[in-house]
């Protein structure tokens, strides 16, 4: 005969909660990388022409902040990103919801989107330049293209995935088209729409950097390109860092935004 006992086990002995430990490790890994990088650069283990020491990148960053150069270029890029997002998101939302709600509209636009979506957006840049010229128009257009596709596809999917019962409720309670849009289709699809917008902004940022490198006299993409042509590697790292920061800020802003506008999403 065997007896199995299930003994009570004291709480894990660690003084830190799992979450706090995760945070610590999250911060530790990039710091460790920077430290190793710095040491390697100091002791000549890596070529500082390509991998300048983090400390020298930092001093360049401070210089560029002082001269206002960094903020000017960042501001210009952010502005283009904002206009482009607006320009791409509004038609994507309207068309996406219309396609989700109406079978005929879906049948009409589906093939167009399916045919244009796989074209690498970067390949459209020369065309954008032809149409919109070298000015702001072409950059804003590229961002808009990047935002439009993921958003229109996600919005359509989001509306189609709304449980049919909610549309039945709308019909039974006599919601007109306008109300169906505002009280059912839009909020019902919002979680999926937000994911689409996130994806779109990511692609928009990529296309913006590309467009700025090719044809611009301002913006972070231009900063990277000019750093390459003048071989100022520290400056290039600073611009890359700034783009990374924009990406992180967008993610954080989205998390906050989703908490505010999708309060019903279960935690």
């Amino acid at each position: 005969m065997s007896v199995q006992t299930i003994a009570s086990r004291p709480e894990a002995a660690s003084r830190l909660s799992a979450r706090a430990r995760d945070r610590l490790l999250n911060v530790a890994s990039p710091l460790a990388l920077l430290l190793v990088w710095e040491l390697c650069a100091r002791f000549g283990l890596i070529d500082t022409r390509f991998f300048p020491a983090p400390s020298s990148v930092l001093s360049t960053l401070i210089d560029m902040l002082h001269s206002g150069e960094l903020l000017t270029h960042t501001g210009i890029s952010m502005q283009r990103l904002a206009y482009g997002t607006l320009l791409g998101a509004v038609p994507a939302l309207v068309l996406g919801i219309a396609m989700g709600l109406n079978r005929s509209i879906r049948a009409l636009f589906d093939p167009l989107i399916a045919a244009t979506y796989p074209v690498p957006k970067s390949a459209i840049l020369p065309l954008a330049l032809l149409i919109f010229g070298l000015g702001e128009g072409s950059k804003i257009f590229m961002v808009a293209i990047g935002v439009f596709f993921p958003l229109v596809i996600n919005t359509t999917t989001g509306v189609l995935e709304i449980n049919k019962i909610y549309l039945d409720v709308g019909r039974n309670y006599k919601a007109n088209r306008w109300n169906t849009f505002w009280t059912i289709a839009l909020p019902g699809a919002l979680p999926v729409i937000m994911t689409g917008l996130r994806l779109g902004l990511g692609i928009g940022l990529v296309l913006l950097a590309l467009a700025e490198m090719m044809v611009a006299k301002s913006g972070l993409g231009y900063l990277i390109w000019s750093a390459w042509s003048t071989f100022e590697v520290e400056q290039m790292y600073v611009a890359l860092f700034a783009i990374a920061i924009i990406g992180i800020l967008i993610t954080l802003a989205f998390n906050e935004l989703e908490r505010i506008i999708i309060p019903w999403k279960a935690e």
Partner: protein
Amino acid sequence: MTRYGDMREDPDIARCRASADARARSSALQQIEFLTMTRALSKIEASQSAKPRSAIRICDLRKTFGPLVAIDDVSVEIARGEFFMIVGPSGCGKTTLLRILAGLESITAGSIEIETPTSHRPVNSMIFQGESIFPWMTVWNNAAYGLRMRSVPGPVIKEVVGHYLARTGLTRFADYYPHQLSGGMRQRVSIARAFANDPEILLMDEPFSALDAQNKLLLQEELLRIWEEHKKTVVFITHSVDEAVFLGDRIMVMTAQPGKLKSFVQVPVARPRNIIELQQTRQYGELITQIWSSLREEVDRARRQEEEMTT
């Protein structure tokens, strides 16, 4: 009066006759549109005001989905203020019948007339099976939905919604979102939404089928209490024989597919009812037996149909 199906000058001819469907002016969101006759109808009503009219008059109703006959040859009159139950085996078309009454499904043949004495009231409001309250709206906004869609003035909405949230015990939860509530509470919101809309007819499609036995009993009692206030006409679908007896004035048993009328069972139990006490009476046992004996054959037939389909 609202009528589904077609209409002739002579109401007596028009009343009970196979009809073409009423999809003349259908739109994407609204497959069938109620044909609300104004002048012509008030004349007809005036000529008939002598005899008491039923709230719902279904005549020779037939509904097919392609080759499948869902409902066939159903004629029934439901009286004003009647709590009317429909019982049938699964797949017998009872939900389809309710969806037709709700205006969510078209008619293949036959006609339905719904008496609407006041024009400001919506014809019907439905309590759906399962989760039908909007997850993105608070309890309050869900309950106010029907009134808002009808552009009822704000103070009225406030009063009516406040009343029904209190009746369903949800006042404290007015600002909660559905995901913060239990299944029973969510179904209460659905009940509040339908009652607050103040329709001529309440349609209920197995509203308690997803709840556990205890919650079900509570909600059945609550539903009866709220219903006693105004005694609106109710068409209630269930597959549960005891629920039919607890709640109904009259029970219609439907056959297995195609759904036809099998029998009517009157429930001569006084109101207000106490469900627990009712369960202990001899009358209750007899009613259950009576309904079940009528239903059993159909449930067996439905099962055979299902088995044939799978093989």
